[in-house]
């Protein structure tokens, strides 16, 4: 049986987009002959000559270029080598791409791939999660696929959208996460969350790589008799509050997990919405679990406990169940 990884799905989606839509082209550092720092574009330049273009180390210019190309009718697909470096393009993303449709009525259909999140040894500048920053700004769609099939379908859908999309792909999942199909399971559009494990005692909301940590925690707690429901947000903007609320209505308890820094962010947004709209549904104060409030450390001993871990998630769920 064929086996596909998360990054295979990203490569295949890019291949299929290039094949099916002549408006699509790829621009980024080392994406051409080299095939990208993570090999997400391997072989694509040879198959689609002239449409997979190497860029200088100029994140601002890369996104600025994409905005211009989009205005002229193209569907640029930009690879930022590491999500962390998108801070250099911050201005073009939030002030140019994000404001353009509201200001001028002309949409900017660009997709920016952000290889996100930590892997051991990557350190402070190759490990960041940027989704909360971009979700804060108007006009930007932010997606965080957690599965092989979502990595495929959400990249296809991102490029098809007329709005700018930050596609946050998790580096830890690249080769670790495997599936026998890229289109397995129920298709959901951007903006819909998925209940990935049903339960009745508590709801754990997660996204990106943390979905898998949450599932492992739910599995462990099942051995103790707790039935934990796990919701994969899939996209953080738009945020599917309805699915989260429906789950909380069933369980009465909420823990939201994110790999980002703890001040504000997606976990705070989810908790704030549930408290504001569903206070009466809650049997206990909703909880958040995030990374620590320091830069992402380099050494594996530090890195492992900087982000939420199986242990810290289990502890947080126990705490929630006892509140």
């Amino acid at each position, binding site marked *: 049986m064929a086996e596909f990884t998360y990054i295979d799905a990203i490569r295949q989606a890019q291949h299929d987009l290039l094949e099916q839509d002549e408006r699509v082209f790829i621009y980024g550092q080392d994406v051409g002959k080299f095939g990208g720092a993570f090999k997400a574009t391997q072989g694509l330049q040879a198959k689609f000559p002239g*449409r997979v273009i190497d860029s200088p180390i100029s994140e601002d210019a890369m996104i*600025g270029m994409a905005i*211009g190309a989009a205005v*002229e009718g193209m569907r640029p697909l930009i690879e930022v080598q590491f999500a962390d470096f998108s801070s250099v393009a911050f201005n073009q993303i939030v*002030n140019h791409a994000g404001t353009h449709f509201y*200001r*001028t009525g002309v949409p900017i259909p660009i997709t920016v791939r952000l290889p996100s999140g930590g892997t051991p040894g990557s350190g402070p500048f190759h490990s960041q999660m940027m989704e909360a920053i971009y979700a804060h700004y108007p006009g930007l769609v932010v997606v965080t696929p957690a599965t092989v099939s979502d990595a495929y379908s959400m990249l296809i859908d991102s490029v098809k959208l007329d*709005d700018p999309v930050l596609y946050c792909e998790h580096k830890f999942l690249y080769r670790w996460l495997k599936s026998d199909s890229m289109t397995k399971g129920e298709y959901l559009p951007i903006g819909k969350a998925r209940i990935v494990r049903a339960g009745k005692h508590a709801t754990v909301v997660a996204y990106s790589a943390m979905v898998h940590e949450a599932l492992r925690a739910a599995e462990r707690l099942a051995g103790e008799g707790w039935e934990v429901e796990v919701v994969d947000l899939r996209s953080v903007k738009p945020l*599917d509050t309805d699915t989260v609320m429906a789950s909380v209505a069933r369980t009465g308890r909420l823990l939201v997990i994110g790999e980002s820094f703890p001040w504000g962010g997606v976990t705070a947004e989810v908790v704030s919405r549930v408290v504001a709209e569903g206070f009466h549904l809650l049997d206990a104060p909703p909880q958040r679990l995030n990374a620590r409030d320091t830069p992402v450390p380099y050494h594996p001993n530090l890195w492992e406990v900087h982000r939420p871990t199986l242990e810290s998630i289990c502890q947080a769920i126990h705490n929630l169940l006892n509140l």
Partner: protein
Amino acid sequence: MPDVQTNQSDAACADASRKDLVRRTFYAMIRARALESKLGSLYKAGQIVGGVYLGKGQEAVSASLGASLTKGRDIFAPLIRDQAGRTAFGEDLLDATRTYLGSVLGPMRGRDGNIHRGRPAEGMPAMISHLGALIPMVGGMLMARRLQGRLEGTVGATCIGEGGSSTGAFHEGLNMAAVEKLPFVLVLANNQFAYSTPTAEQFACEHLVDRAKGYGVAGHEVDGTNMLECVDVIGRAVANARAGGGPQLVVANLLRLSGHGEHDDGFYVPDALKDSEVGRDCLDIGEQQILEAGFSTTKEIEEWKESCAEEVQASVATVQQEPKPDPYQDDWRAFSTPGMSGLH
């Protein structure tokens, strides 16, 4: 509006075409000055919400660029002091007055104001305030046309000041255009002050045009107060780009003859600089030049000035009667995708 000359022999055609270019440039300068003079008055009368940023002193440079480009074929991304370039390129006067006065009928519909306006789908992007951001955008518009097989004969141009040339976006954008060998023209108006910051605190090289060599692009330097020189040098830069000569950097030396905006009296600009050659008014010089060249007459210029002032007056009067944006009518949609904004 000056007529375009046609049906001439080659040499005569070149002469006629230069004459036409000079006339269109000077006409745009007059028209921009008429509009900006009115905008200044409206600002002082409290009729304009937000800032007013004038291009006084930069008209020859800006109009020379706009007049060298063809709307519908070329791309022009004007910056803050490019009213004359916008006019020469063919921006509707109403787009300017509507945006300044906040009419909902304007291209920005009250969602953005003053010089932050454009019609991107028609080859004229709407600037954001962050300097240098338009440089890669124009590069991307050109790259799109290359991918679409319709780049041939097209030029993309934008403007910047010496202050904006200090940004990372300027560097990244110009370098990218150079790497891609795009038909791109960047006109840098060295107007001596970035808000209140003089050139000595902005850059340390002797001549900004020397930077062209570092980027691997063609460099041109021009006296920005000299209209004929601007028409020729900027026209040549545009022609070079069109002919496949790659990016062109034009540095124009001049003085900003206003404050940064109308809220700023520019007290920090030394009188000696105002009285020097760089402080000359390009409109005065242009008028003298166009008369000496026999391209126009005093009578015609007077008529242009009068008709431009009248058109500006009429445009403002029209727009003042137009509806302002209504918060209950604005759809408050930052997303183009239907339903996306409702989901938030």
